[in-house]
């Protein structure tokens, strides 16, 4: 499997390319840096502002800039750019439907040992409740790059969850993401609908179960809002069982979203929601160890699927 470039580099490289041709792009950070940001700041000093550790103000300023015709990207760690300033996002960005892209760094347990203040496990639930927003959760570098462009072209607010590190390639650079989801593989026994970094986990699980002659399908649900209900219903109709898989609190995540589609459409098919239980995680350790603790590692997921 090809290992692609760092996800944050993918993000900043694409943003750099867009900003080079569009001086109306503004990038605001609440004192959160990144390697790829150094070049952006150097080359486009008038398009970069560090607003300080003041997320509420950052969102309102972004709204004002957007009202004046700017395309604004705002950036910091997920809990602070979603929960801290939720009302500003709701009123200033969504209510006025402005082209501002909220870029949240560190989905799930990215900042594992930093504790629950830094865990991003509730953001999908709350951001999903915002009417006008588009939520994009990339799973590799190609999807990160594509989503920066989609957000740039969007006339309303977008929320991108940005993971970090180098991860195996899932998509070719030419992939079309307009469906909001991709059926990466089909399976006879069960379909896993996963999002973000759990998409790779689902592929690993499918690979492992294939060795045991169990055929599993994997769907990457990268556009969490608006959901492509038609496509999802098609997948549901071709599946015997469903699993949703996310590094996210079980309340309000993609498991909830799929449940809503099942119930709204009278679909009677078993669904197992695999996610983080509804609790704050004060356990210290690596991201992998926390995932394993909550049975989101390969073994945990397989045991859960097999009912062991």
């Amino acid at each position, binding site marked *: 499997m090809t290992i692609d470039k760092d996800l944050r580099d993918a993000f900043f490289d694409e943003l750099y390319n867009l900003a080079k041709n569009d001086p109306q792009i503004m990038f605001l950070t609440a004192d959160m840096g990144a390697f790829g940001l150094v070049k952006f700041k150097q080359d486009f000093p*008038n398009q970069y*502002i560090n*607003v*300080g550790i*003041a997320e*509420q*103000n950052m*969102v*309102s*300023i*972004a*709204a*004002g*800039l*957007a*009202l*004046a*015709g*700017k395309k604004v990207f705002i950036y910091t760690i997920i809990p602070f750019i979603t929960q801290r300033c939720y*009302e*500003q996002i709701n*009123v*200033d960005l969504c*209510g*006025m439907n402005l082209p501002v892209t909220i870029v949240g760094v560190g989905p799930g347990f990215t900042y594992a040992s930093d504790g629950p203040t830094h865990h991003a496990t509730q953001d999908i639930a709350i951001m999903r409740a915002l009417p006008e927003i588009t939520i994009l959760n990339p799973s590799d570098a190609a999807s990160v790059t594509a989503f920066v462009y989609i957000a740039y072209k969007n006339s309303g607010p977008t929320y991108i969850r940005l993971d970090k590190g180098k991860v195996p390639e899932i998509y070719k650079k030419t992939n079309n993401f307009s469906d909001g989801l991709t059926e990466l593989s089909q399976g006879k026994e069960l379909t896993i609908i996963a999002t973000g970094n759990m998409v790779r986990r689902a592929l690993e699980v499918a690979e492992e179960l294939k060795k045991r002659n169990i055929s599993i399908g994997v769907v990457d649900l990268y556009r969490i809002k608006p959901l492509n209900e038609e496509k999802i219903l098609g997948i549901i109709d071709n599946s015997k069982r469903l699993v949703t898989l996310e590094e996210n609190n079980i309340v309000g995540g993609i498991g909830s979203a799929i449940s809503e589609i099942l119930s709204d459409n009278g679909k009677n098919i078993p669904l197992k929601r695999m996610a983080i239980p509804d609790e704050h995680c004060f356990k210290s350790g690596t991201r992998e160890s926390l995932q394993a603790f909550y049975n989101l590692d390969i073994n945990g997921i397989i045991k859960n699927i097999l009912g062991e």
Partner: protein
Amino acid sequence: MFSTATLMEDNIQKLKEKANFVRRQILEMVVAAGKGHIGGAFSCTDILVSLYYGDVLRFDSSNPNWDKRDRFILSKGHTAAALYAILSDLGYFPCTELNNFQKENCILGGHPDRKIPGIEADTGSLGHGLGIGIGLALSAKLDKKDFMTFVLMGDGECYEGSVWEAAMFASHHKLNNLVGIVDKNNLCILDFTKNCVNMEPLEDKWKSFGWDVITIDGHSFEELDSVFSKVRSRQSEKPLMIIANTIKGKGVSFMENKPEWHHSVPNQEQLEMARKELSKE
């Protein structure tokens, strides 16, 4: 020939009459709707009248999105009735809309939003307007445009932490094209601010956050004009904060300085008294 002083007096008399008209409109709107924020609307009426009729704001009511217009944000959105009365009078939308304030299918909700011609930003949740105003002022600097941005806040609104996040940012970035106005009526919803959480010395707070601060009588058209007429010719690099001392419920004696008139609705007897008082001048 009229002397300048006479002209000034003439203008001030016209502004006073306009303010009375606006307050009467607010009164009728709130009574017809059965709800609304009379107290705060009355305290900021003179400020709004000075901005819109005193040759301060640049605007074109026939072209609400005119690129060169000044941006005015009513951050204390709950006093929208005052702004609606003015915008309709200026021709942004028909005056008949005022009769339906907050009613079914009326564009005029209890708090302003951008679907209403002349409204720059959705407000209603306090502490957002100054940050939005900063974004507008900053864009004017970046794009070398000469429009100014005005943000009207309540003093109770200054309890919001986001106001001070914005205050710090605006002075750091030398946004001298931004004018903040605090409608300082000394009352929040339940109590006088000094009894709730004391915010004095408010002027020193803004100064220490790097703003030029001028304190005036927010019901004196002379004082309002003396500050507003110079906002475009200021040499300072700092943003300007105008602390306008006002009286909540101003214009109707039994409403003035009474916390209960934050969002009370007058009964028939009170309505008659208020109408009478607002018809005097």
